[in-house]
């Protein structure tokens, strides 16, 4: 029985997805089952590793993006009765690039060593956070980009929507389509429920933005600049509607409050506080 379910989100980039799938199979195949969500991909651009093809009219038109896409994959596992079989879920977009070598074994080992970590992310060589991971390779943060999250099942179970879960509502709030502020929300939910969010430099993952920059038409998304504008505008609207926050700084302070509280109640983890 494999411990981890990896969900790869793809839209119309079969070669990129297949490369990632094959990388994981090669280096982490013993640790993980791999599921590919085709987020409204054209039928002729499905990856040969496709597991589920989300292909309603709306999804074909707009895709799923990160939040809805991961909700879709996770709820499919629920429906198929597989969710409970896994200890953790590795959520990846197709543009994730991993180093040659095992990624998941070191991550699982960290989850074992850090029983209150609910969210674990490999660091990226482009992230400044690596400067904070010199004395300790793993530290707890209040802000992590959702590049490659490994989520503990118990953490997901403690915060997920249990009533009629679907792509709009399970782990992420699907109403925030492009996801600006979603990481803040997930991490706030973690610390509010006594779970920590960690970054580790034991393994590395990066996001190859060139796919979005160079193949926006193929992915059927807006160009980079337009996408960024929409990402922020929609996210801010969502934040205001849901939390009454007019700035991401409010959201950040909200998360940081829970973060600080976590260490008050868990002084044993203070060495992992940044």
């Amino acid at each position, binding site marked *: 029985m494999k411990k981890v379910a990896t969900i790869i989100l793809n839209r119309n980039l079969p070669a990129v997805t297949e490369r990632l799938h094959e990388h994981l199979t090669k280096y982490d195949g013993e640790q993980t089952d791999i599921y590919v969500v085709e987020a409204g991909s054209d039928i002729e651009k499905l990856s040969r590793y496709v597991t589920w093809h989300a292909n309603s009219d709306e999804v074909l038109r707009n895709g799923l993006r990160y939040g809805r896409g991961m909700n879709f994959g996770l709820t499919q596992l629920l429906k198929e009765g597989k969710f409970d079989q896994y200890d953790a879920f590795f959520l990846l977009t197709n543009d994730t690039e991993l180093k040659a070598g095992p990624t998941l074994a070191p991550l699982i080992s960290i989850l074992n060593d850090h029983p209150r970590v609910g969210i674990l992310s490999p660091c990226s060589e*482009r*992230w*400044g*956070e690596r*400067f*904070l991971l010199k004395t300790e390779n793993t530290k707890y943060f209040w802000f992590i980009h959702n590049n490659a999250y490994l989520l503990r099942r118990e953490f997901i179970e403690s915060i997920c929507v249990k009533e009629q879960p679907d792509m709009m509502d399970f782990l992420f709030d699907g109403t925030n389509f492009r996801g600006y502020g979603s990481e803040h929300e997930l991490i706030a939910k973690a610390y509010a429920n006594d779970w920590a969010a960690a970054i580790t430099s034991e393994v590395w993952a990066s996001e190859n933005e060139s796919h979005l920059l160079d193949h926006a038409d193929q992915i059927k998304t807006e160009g980079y600049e337009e996408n960024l504008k929409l990402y922020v505008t929609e996210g801010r609207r969502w934040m205001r509607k849901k939390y009454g926050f007019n*700035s*991401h*700084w409010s959201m950040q302070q909200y998360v940081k409050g829970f973060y600080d509280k976590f260490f008050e109640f868990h002084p044993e983890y203070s060495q992992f506080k940044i």
Partner: protein
Amino acid sequence: MIHQRLQSFLQKRHCTLLGVGPMSINCVDATIELANEHEVPILMIASRRQIDSEEFGGGYVNNWTTEDFARYVTDRDKKGKILLARDHGGPWQSTKEKDAQLGLRRAMDSAKSSYRADIAAGFQVLHIDPSVDIHGQPDVDEVLDRVFDLYEFCWTQAQQSKQEIIFEVGTEEQSGSTNSQEELDYTLNAIKKFCTQNKLPQPTFVVIQCGTRVMEMRNVGSFDSPVRVANEIPAEIQLPKMIEICNHHGIFMKEHNTDYLSDEGLQWHPRLGIHAANVAPEFGVAETKALVNVLESNGLSNHAERFLKISYDSNKWDKWMLENTRATDRDRSLIAGHYVFSMPEVKELKIEAGKELERKGIHLEEYLKQQVKQSILRYLRNFRLVRSS
């Protein structure tokens, strides 16, 4: 007393103090007027390239020497609201020291000479920044040794001339000693120890890299960016940590390169606990844009063209360009405009244009000053120094 005054003001107002670069006479006048009209302290932060002593041939701002500049400000600052501040003092911070390829000792002596003139002229805030070294990359301890040398020198000079001064340490440059949390903590501990041992006052401000960086006519740092800036710790992480360290050491945190941040970003400065922030080129660009606009919209396009060309030819825009810049020649001229305000041909051009504009009831210099005031007011309002009406 200066330190206590600022501390009490910050505590009462829950604000962020503003440091304004003296980019031009109009900018200096605008700053003095705003500080006096609203009765708020404003730091006038002069770099050595902008203002320096006679020995260094003055600076590019109105060709003022330190003495002339200080006299000009103090004569007009009726309520004593302006704090004259040296920004990035230290060796090789003057173009002359760089061009002459001075060695360390001579560069340090030269920096001391510049500080001596600052103190004699009545500067109250001295930024000790020896992080620049044209001959190599000094490590944190070497930078600290230089800080101590200059710090003690300035304090002794000030004591001898019975002048009250406060200090700013640290730098936002990558070569600096306050970039990472460990470096900041180490630096502040070392300075605290040095000051205690030598019975010197602790520094008032420390410069912290807050995720701000000015290029062209925008802020390209992570502070206001919704996306990650490569190799930078996101401001969401960096800022609260650095503020925590500053508060622990009882030192005010100062942000440099605050120019062009959004209103929202600025409004968060007091809430985040940023004690002070410096803004400079934005005010120079605001005046340049106002000048070009007023000329072009009043049938003086010829004058505008001449000014833009002089500015472009100065090449002063070069250091502000992004690597893959898409800036037009006009953009480059707008970026460099304030560097050429004091050139005789620009002064002449403005006098000519001013006469034409007078006929239309526009007082050119007054108009430009008002535009700069608006630009500065954006910061005063967002920093809670002036209440929005």
